[in-house]
């Protein structure tokens, strides 16, 4: 079995449970804390925590280390990394164009003064 197939297996068995599917659906709209995730359910916080651990083991979600909040998020791995990289590249060009604009303003001011 390839790595991808193993991950798929783990993911699908984790998703066999309706509560866990609901948690994943909620996280597809953005990150949330365990408490926030537990709100729509009648089950206890502990039960929801257990579901979250199963999802975490399957690699579908991860839990952050943001102090007390520890938000859960859907794990899209490489896709997220790529989006971050592109965002950083764009940001770099915007900064470069800011500097270019300021530089050319100065150059033109010097030309017209002297």
């Amino acid at each position, binding site marked *: 079995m390839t790595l991808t197939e193993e991950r798929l297996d783990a993911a699908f068995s984790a998703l066999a449970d309706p509560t866990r*599917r609901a948690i994943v659906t909620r996280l597809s709209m953005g990150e949330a804390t365990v408490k926030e995730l537990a709100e729509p359910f009648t089950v206890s916080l502990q039960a929801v925590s257990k579901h979250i651990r199963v999802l975490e083991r399957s690699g579908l979600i991860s839990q952050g280390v943001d102090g007390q909040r520890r938000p859960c998020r859907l794990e899209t791995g490489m896709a997220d990394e790529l*989006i971050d*990289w592109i965002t950083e*590249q764009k940001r770099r060009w915007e900064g470069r164009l800011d500097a270019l604009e300021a530089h*050319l303003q100065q150059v033109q001011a010097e030309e017209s003064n002297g």
Partner: protein
Amino acid sequence: MSAPTNEDDRRGEFIVSRVIDAPRDLLWKAFTEPEHLAAFWGGPGITVPVGSVTVDARPGGGFELTMVAPDGAEYPNRGEYVEVEKPGRLVLREPDTGITMTITFAEVEDKTEVTIHQVGVPERFLGPEAEAGFAAMFDKLEALLDRWTDG
């Protein structure tokens, strides 16, 4: 999924553009002469020593400079001109990163619109391992999510 990657993303494709209050010839100079490149290529907070800039603006010619971060760390940039069509179009390729940038200059009344069209992603986003990272899992999950949210 929160961050779906489409074909353009997978190729690292994006466009950034800006209308700058300067004549087109000056923009051309800014992108092909060392004193100008040194003044802006690093962006805010990063300096580029003029002496580190080498420009040979003709197809096949080289482009080299060193960016120096506030902590003194040096980041060399190396590129090659693929197309040089004064005064409207420059294509630069970075052999180390696989990135190609097409820079165009268009006159907009008495100003100039600079457009950067960049394509290419670093090695780590390519190859079979990365492919597994982008995994079919997410395509299938996406389909599942669509079904749940519709229902």
